[in-house]
């Protein structure tokens, strides 16, 4: 187990009677990409602001890289890069000028700053507009400029709030690629989002936020196992005795559930399993005298987990 770089203990933030973050225990390991998921107003942004020392917690303890953001905010902010949601820049300044200001605030000397800025703009693909005013930039370009800002800071941790919100699919794809590249440099990344399929693509672990608490945490597959029962779905189409096939498949070790896709008999059989059971399923079909036509496996999507979970929560609340 690698060391923890972000740790909160019973972290609480109240605004009057409203509890935005409720006894939150968050732990992020060095080098991982952690996704904070949850509907709007579930306490994600408030948590992020407390991690950066921009909002004071009502109660609880925080450690970021061993520092307390309440008392040592400068040390924390010097090592953590933050990309807020709907990031803004000074419209009357150029991309380079905006970055120079940030470099100055970080105490980076001038020559080093120019060097890093050139490099960062090159990397996010904005070199050609380095001396254009930011007012001419699109949403995607601003977001990339935000990443360039993170790069010149050379942080150990990057925190991104809804980074892909409002990006077109191509821009979002490029952005996720950038996150993967940062991960390869062993930078710890904490990102919040409610665009689940994108989070699923890049996150090592996710935490599901609900009313200021983490209600579920783990890898996507672990969550699937807990919420949906099975982490994998083996889909197959086979000809033969339906009854016999079903019996043979259902008795395989690791099968949680079996159901049919579609109403008529030719529909797919879907197995929810705890592991990838394709070889076993294929053998079972053949041994039961069936003819296997298609066989595939898919990881369940976070969307499903999310929907299922909140359905249960709402159902529980209604009772």
């Amino acid at each position, binding site marked *: 187990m690698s060391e923890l770089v972000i740790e909160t203990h019973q972290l609480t933030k109240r605004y009057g009677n409203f509890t935005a973050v409720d006894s939150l225990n968050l732990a992020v390991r060095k080098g991982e990409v952690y996704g904070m998921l949850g509907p709007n107003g579930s306490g994600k*942004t*408030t948590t992020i*602001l407390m991690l*950066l020392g*921009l*909002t004071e917690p009502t109660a609880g303890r925080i450690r970021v890289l061993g520092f*307390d953001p309440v*008392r*040592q*905010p*400068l*040390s924390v*902010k*010097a090592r*953590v*890069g*933050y*990309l*807020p949601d*709907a*990031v*803004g*820049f*000074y*419209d*009357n300044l150029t991309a380079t000028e905006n970055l120079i*200001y*940030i470099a*100055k*605030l*970080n*105490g980076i000397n001038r020559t080093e700053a120019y060097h890093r800025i050139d490099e960062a703009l090159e990397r996010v693909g904005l070199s050609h507009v380095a001396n254009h005013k930011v007012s001419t930039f699109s949403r995607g370009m601003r977001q990339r400029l*935000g990443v360039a*800002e993170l790069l010149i800071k050379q942080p150990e941790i990057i925190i991104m709030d809804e980074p892909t919100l409002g990006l077109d699919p191509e821009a979002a794809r490029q952005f996720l690629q950038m996150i993967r590249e940062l991960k390869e440099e062993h930078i710890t990344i904490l990102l919040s989002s409610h665009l689940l399929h994108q989070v699923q693509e890049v996150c090592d672990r996710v935490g599901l936020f609900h009313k200021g608490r983490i209600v579920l945490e783990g890898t996507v597959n672990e969550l699937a196992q807990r919420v949906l029962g099975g982490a994998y779905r083996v889909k197959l189409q086979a000809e033969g005795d339906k009854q016999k096939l079903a019996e043979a498949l259902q008795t395989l070790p690791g099968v949680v559930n079996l159901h049919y896709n579609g109403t008529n008999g030719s529909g797919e059989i879907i197995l929810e399993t705890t592991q990838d059971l394709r070889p076993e399923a294929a053998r079972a079909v053949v041994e039961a005298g069936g003819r296997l036509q298609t066989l595939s496996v898919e990881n369940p999507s976070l969307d499903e987990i999310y929907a299922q979970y909140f359905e249960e929560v709402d159902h529980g609340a209604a009772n």
Partner: protein
Amino acid sequence: MAQQIKQPTTIQPAQSRQQVAHRTREGSPWTGLWAVVAKDMADHLTSARMRILEFLILLTAGGTVIAAMQNIRSTVAQDRFVFLRLFTTAQEPLPAFVGFLGFLVPLIAIALAFDAVNGEFNQRTMSRVLAQPIYRDALLLGKFLAGLFTLALVLTAIWLLIMGMGILGLGVPPTGEEVARSLLFLVVTIFYGGIWLALALVFSTVFRQPATAALASIAVWLFFTIFWGIIARLLAQAIRPIEVGTVQEVISQTTLLQILNRISPNTLYVEATVGLLLPATRSFGLVLPSQLQGAILGAPLPLGESVALIWPHLTGLVAVTILLFALAYVLFQRQEIRA
């Protein structure tokens, strides 16, 4: 930290670091201050808003000084302080330059600061800037100083311009005392601007809309410029009415009126400039015969005496500025950063 190294090592280093950390806030609150000042000043100096104000103030300076010079030449006065009269001489229909400044300086100061804080929120740059290793202190003070330095720069340029025009137009160099007095006048004017700068900063922290902040600042300015004088007179008449008409009653009402009037920064500024630029000024209130004993009427006061006369005004201007800035500071520290 040095003290703790000397102590016997019964406390573990991690614990001791934590204790230190809990007592004080880490680092200087002014980290990054000059970066903020430089950036905001560059913004001010390149903004269209500033160009308009510079044009306005140049026009005023040129107009009033040329008018004043015509007036001075025509009177052929024997005046030791002919240069100072460049600032104070009015020629119909124009008021004197100091009169104009009383209007213009608040306007410039408000224009420089009314969107200082809320502008950052509206551009969504606030959270990004504060996520850098600086405190809010540095951001707010940086914005204030950037405004003050810009104001100082503009006013100093105007001052030099007027002095230059004076030398060319009047054909005599200013005396040392004239330079000293007009420099002090420049300093007072900058501090006077500081009040309005701090006021606009307060409103820019309170209101999210820059237009609202500008309007609120201008409302306060109008209140003090136009209405406070009337209100002060009514208040003085109500609190200290003249019933019988004794000298005591008149004096007490006038004194109260003066105190009330001085609540307005405009009064403080006008009195301070009068004290500096008209060296014959001995007092701003009623002058009793006993105070004039031994005085030569119309004789100028030495510079030191004039400064002593306006010293309370100067400290008053600075004190109000500090109070207003402190208010903005408290409001800003308590503000939630999320937009």
